[in-house]
């Protein structure tokens, strides 16, 4: 009987569905509802329509945070998007020590996130005892401003994120590379292709779909950047590194204003959903 078979499948899915509903969907809907209400804590007081949205949009920190968030995105694509691909190809093409490299690139990823951030905060400290400045000091160079420089702070935070995340991503690409049929390589070699040609005409085209997916995942992840700037700079200097999620954090945990925190969260989701839809549409058109 069909329904019996269906029932079994539903039963298998049930725990997952319940957990999802409880931990993901319900809070998601609750956040949307909360963003339309005035609230004490999470107890709604009255419906205010879009007032919370109007409020957060006119606050002085909002637009700097929007600008910064897109800057994080831009820098993360510049610094962090190609690097894992390069690393993966390098490991794939190396003839010795492959497993050593594989382990090595993944190591930063097992360092707890906060430890990573503290480590790099120390490296990029702007006084004479910061890691970079001590190295420069050995070369006789005066201490530089690192995280304290409004123009450098975002790329430096992105370097931190890349150091932590690139290894894991490169393993995904490596898996993609190893999934390429050896026959393609053999054919290329027989036709006299060198390493460069193998990379550009065999490996990269095969990675294209994977890269496309990872790109949008990276966009979504970086857009929600929170704890790196929160811990490294607290959004400073003078808002130079404040992110949208940090505003959410401030509304929720510094002001206990969950309605406005929800309003910004909903705005972030709208931006991300829009970006994803546009990206998918462009991709589909390219594929046609």
């Amino acid at each position: 009987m069909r329904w019996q078979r269906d029932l079994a499948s539903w039963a298998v899915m049930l725990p997952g569905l319940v957990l999802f509903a409880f931990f993901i969907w319900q809070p998601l809907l609750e956040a949307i509802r909360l963003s339309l209400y005035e609230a004490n804590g999470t107890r709604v007081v009255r419906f205010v329509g879009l007032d919370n949205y109007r409020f957060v949009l006119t606050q002085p920190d909002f637009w700097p945070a929007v600008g910064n968030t897109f800057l994080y995105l831009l820098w993360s694509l510049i610094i962090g998007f190609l690097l894992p691909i390069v690393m993966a190809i390098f490991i794939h093409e190396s003839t010795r020590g492959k497993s050593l490299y594989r382990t090595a690139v993944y190591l930063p990823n097992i360092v707890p996130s906060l430890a990573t951030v503290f480590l790099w905060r120390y490296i990029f400290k702007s006084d004479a005892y910061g890691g970079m400045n001590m190295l420069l000091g050995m070369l006789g160079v005066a201490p530089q401003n690192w995280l304290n420089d409004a123009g450098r702070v975002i790329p430096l935070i992105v370097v931190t994120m890349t150091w932590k995340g690139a290894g894991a991503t490169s393993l995904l690409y490596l898996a993609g590379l190893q999934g390429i049929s050896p026959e393609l390589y053999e054919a290329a070699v027989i036709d006299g292709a060198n390493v460069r040609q193998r990379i550009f005409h065999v490996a990269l085209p095969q990675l294209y779909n994977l890269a496309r997916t990872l790109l949008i995942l990276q966009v979504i992840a970086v857009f929600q950047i929170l704890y790196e700037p929160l811990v490294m700079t607290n959004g400073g200097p003078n808002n130079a590194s404040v992110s949208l999620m940090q505003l959410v954090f401030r509304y929720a945990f510094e002001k206990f204003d969950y309605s406005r925190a929800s309003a910004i969260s909903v705005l972030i989701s709208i931006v991300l959903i829009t970006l994803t839809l546009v990206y998918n549409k462009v991709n589909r058109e390219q594929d046609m």
Partner: protein
Amino acid sequence: MKKLVAVLLVIMLSLTAFSALGETVLKLGIYPEDVDTAALEAHEFFLAEFAKALPDVTVEKAHYKYAVDTFVAMAEAGTVPTIFETWFTEPQKLIRGGFVADITDELNELGWTDKMNPTIRSLLSDANGRIYGVPRDGYALGLMINAEVFEDAGLVDADGLPLYPKTWDELAQTAVKIKEATGSAGLVLLAKDNAGGWHFSNIAWNFGATLESQDETGKWHANLNSPEAVAAMQYVKDLKWKYDVLTADPTSEDWGTGFTQLGTGAAAMYIAANDAVSQPTTNNGLPVDKLMMAGLPAGPGGQYSLFGGTPYMFAANATPEAIKAALKYLETMGKAPVLSDPAKAGLVADAKARQTNGTPVINEFPSWTDADLIAARQAVVAEYSNVDTRMFQNYFDTVAKEGNLRMEEPVNAQDLYAELTKVLQAVVTDQNADVQALMDTANTNLQQILDDTVNK
């Protein structure tokens, strides 16, 4: 065997349920952490005294260190302890959110309302004058000094006491001498979070600024770009670029790291309050007799000290009985305007705990105006004193001056501090920062926030 266990369980459960009926449970969030042995000893004594007074009340030791990321969840779940200690920044926010209990009736019944320092009472009340907390103690900002660093720099008088600065100009000069002689920073300036703006608002007052004002229509105005406020910010900028006497990176300094810098001698001076004397000493290793406190230096606009109180507050769902029990416990601790025998013993226990911990035993700010209590506390402080009182003389003399104590700016104080902190970050990281332009922007921003909130 199984059956027997089951029967026993049922009996035990029903007994618990029965005893829970009508019983007052006091969840004591102010009970110390397990590691703080000296404080624990004092609280065990308080508990014993408390049990004599209210034997029917069940006390749960529920140490809770207030934290903004746990509080709302606990409040919504109804698990906030009956009484907890919070920060001076929090009362109005907690009152507005309905997270804390109105204790006006309980205070009136005990006759404590009129004995509460009126300034502190207003900090703990809503617009209708209902009261939601009691002060643990009052505080006023002053200048904390690491006497060891001053000694190393040779900045001591004939009696060996540090030559503390009396004006902001002198502070800069003193700081330069310290940096030259010892290599330690002269002053810890905070620029990481809102505490930076909080300290700066006090500097600005002494330069003659008033940062917020209300016109006759009731509208609030931001006043961050007045010549006085700009001069104060310029002074801070000079501390960094002209005198170069700050710690290496003010944007990484917050309330806690400031005490570390001061306590370890990496810096000589720090703006801090009398209720935090355990921070440089007990927590960061400065010998108890090497901490000095002076009044905050005077500036061209006068001499003011920012004044407030650290409150105890009560869970919104606490019963009147539980609140009364909590207030009784405070009485036992000597934190109430009642000088009972347990309270006297409590004062002694507290002073002894401070002695053991190497925390200066100094006078508190009178947050209650009960003369007997104040006299008794002074007597205990005199008896158990572990410091040279001359080291704290200028601080207490300064704050006792008429008109020296000043409440923080009245509306959206945290937003004000946030705007000022951004400017601080800009001026200590950029030598070419345009102070006037930055203060203009901060002023526009704060005005926007005021217009969107209190002026609406």
